[in-house]
């Protein structure tokens, strides 16, 4: 055996450990849940009868499932642009200040590192009706009528989006700041000498050069919002995704089917569909957003 071969062999030996881990911990359950989606397993029964595509046919007749899909897409459509625009703005502002930058950065990261369950409950209490709810009390001070927030079928979902955006801001700000620091200062100086104003610099230089970061965040944030669960489970009455299913995302639907109604077959079917949605959205984003920019 030559040295080169030896080296390659060593590499494979080392790689096999994580590979084995991935096969056992990631791929096996994935394949298994694909298989479950073709069965009528009820969690407790040892029997898993193969029923073909019946679950897939039935699930699209389920109004609650369709509602959950629409809700999930709403979370993405409202949440992802909001979190990216706000965090981009914040990081641009933060990038300009030199003093206390670390302190501010810490401030924005704090929500992200706080356990989501705690965050959800604090926000749930802030959304409460007067005289308990902080936000409603604030509105009252400014003479605005109190709002039902989580108790309304139209406001509950946006309220949860706001909480989630607030949580994810810190992470996105950090990534954007790192991206901003990679933009060569010469480009900006050159543009300034050429007489470009701030807006032109932002739109012609900064944002195009941040494109890979924006793509990365758009994809990871989309996946985060597609898999939203903890906030909804903790912020709605008894984790129901209510009122009237208005906030129920797919993952909560899966959870309820699997562990409250013991309908594992349907839960696995919904999981496979969610997997499909995530994959499609990610591919589309990569195709649309990924552009090579060179100067």
């Amino acid at each position, binding site marked *: 055996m030559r040295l080169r071969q030896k080296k390659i062999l060593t590499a494979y030996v080392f790689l096999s450990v994580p590979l084995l881990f991935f096969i056992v911990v990631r791929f096996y359950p994935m394949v298994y849940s694909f298989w479950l989606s073709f069965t009528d397993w009820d969690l407790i029964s040892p029997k898993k009868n193969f029923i073909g595509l019946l679950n897939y046919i039935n699930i699209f007749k389920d109004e609650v499932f369709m509602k959950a899909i629409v809700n999930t897409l709403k979370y993405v459509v409202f949440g992802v642009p909001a979190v990216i625009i706000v965090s981009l703005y914040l990081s641009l502002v933060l990038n300009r200040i030199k003093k206390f930058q670390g302190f501010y950065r810490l401030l924005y990261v704090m929500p992200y590192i706080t356990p989501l369950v705690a965050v959800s409950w604090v926000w*749930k209490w802030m959304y409460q*009706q007067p005289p308990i709810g902080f936000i409603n009390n604030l509105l009252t001070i400014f003479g605005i009528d109190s709002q039902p927030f989580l108790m309304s079928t139209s406001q509950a979902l946006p309220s949860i989006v706001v909480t989630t955006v607030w949580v994810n801001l810190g992470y996105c700000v950090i990534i954007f700041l790192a991206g901003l620091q990679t933009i060569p200062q010469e480009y900006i100086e050159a543009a300034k000498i050429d007489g470009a104003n701030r807006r032109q610099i932002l739109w012609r230089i900064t944002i195009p050069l941040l494109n890979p970061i924006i793509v990365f965040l758009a994809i990871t944030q989309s996946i985060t919002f597609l898999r939203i669960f903890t906030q909804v489970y903790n912020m709605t009455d*008894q984790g129901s995704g209510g009122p009237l299913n208005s906030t129920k995302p797919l993952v909560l639907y899966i959870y*309820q089917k699997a562990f409250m109604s013991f309908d594992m077959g349907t839960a696995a079917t919904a999981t496979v569909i969610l997997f499909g949605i995530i994959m499609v959205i990610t591919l589309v984003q990569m195709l649309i957003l990924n552009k090579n920019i060179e100067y």
Partner: protein
Amino acid sequence: MKRFFVLLVLLGVLLTSFTFAAKTKITYWQYFYETKKITIDQLIKEFEKQNPDIEVEHVTFPYANYNQKVASSIPAGVGPDVINLYYGWIPKYVTSGYLIPLPEEDFSKEYLQSQFFSFVSKGIEFNGKYYALPIAVRSLALFWNKKLFEQAGLDPEKPPTTLQELVEYAKRLTVYDKKGNIVQEGLTMQPSGQGHHWIREVLVRQFGGVPYTSDSRTVLYDKTGAGSDVLKFYTDLITVDKVGYPGFMNDDVTAFKAQKAAMTIDGSFRIGTLNKIKGLEWGVAELPSYMGVKSNFASFWANGITTNATQDPKKLEAAVKFIKFLSSPESMKLWLKNVGELPANPELAKEYYDDPVYGAFLRGLEYAHATFFVDESAQRQVMMDAVDKVVLKGISPEVAWREAAEEEQKVLDNFWSSIQ
């Protein structure tokens, strides 16, 4: 000398293995709740003293993953012989081939009728067979806050006894701020808590209806009695009388604990929680009656025998003995004292009728019903949605009630079709 020792040790090993072999070992599973665990341990000791040839292994696990744990234990072959489960799960466990019927020679109809409240045998029956026995049961009652009664100028020792009084008291006990926001609820309105049981088993019957057919396959609450008047009565308290609303201070229990709700309908399992709150002076009364009709909702956890125990006739015999022992009046007494749950035996219950705390719950058991749930969370959701539709969407109670019945019928149909 050495050889003698070896012989002695061998003899010892032989003897101990002999005694072990003579003992039948059964495994008992329940979820972890400290007082329950301690009490069962105590009961097992007593049981083993009475039956020296039986050994009981007691296993507990967190409530949160109860069904997952059970499900994964079957293929692994490490399941229990006797299991403690919520009565509402019996259909699911039976159809999954997990539970076996209680042997008829040991648990006759007469035995069940003489030892347990009538709703028990209904709750543990599935397709004409009985599957599990409770140690204790839970029922609903009206909790009231004595201080808040006083503040409203009401007699703190006189809770409402009829629905009319309940509404009247609730109105007087509700406090609003200048803008009309409720700052203190007269009565909690939380269908996601015990409210949906109150609607289904209590109000429906008091309004002259029946919630389900006796075989539990068909929803009847929209077709019998006053129908949607039940939902109208409930939602009027929220929208017209404005004595409370779902989600006030997050939930009914929090509101009552914080002394921001004057009255609440809750279960006997709440006694322990409320006892811990300093400065909360509460009383508990039977649920208010309406047109002379009293009703209540009862639920329970019960002990059933799994297919595991059938592998060995000795095991089955031990399991039968153990279940009978757990449901004996002596065990129930200890259970009430330690855990605070109500005895399932009517004769024993009568001894506590005058108890200021347990009395109201126990008297309620006489006329209580245990809903035959096929999917409790889905069936609860139906009631929550019915109330939300009227309160949030302004849909008429007639339509919301009819839709609720249709939705719940779907849940029932789904279940019954899956087992045939």
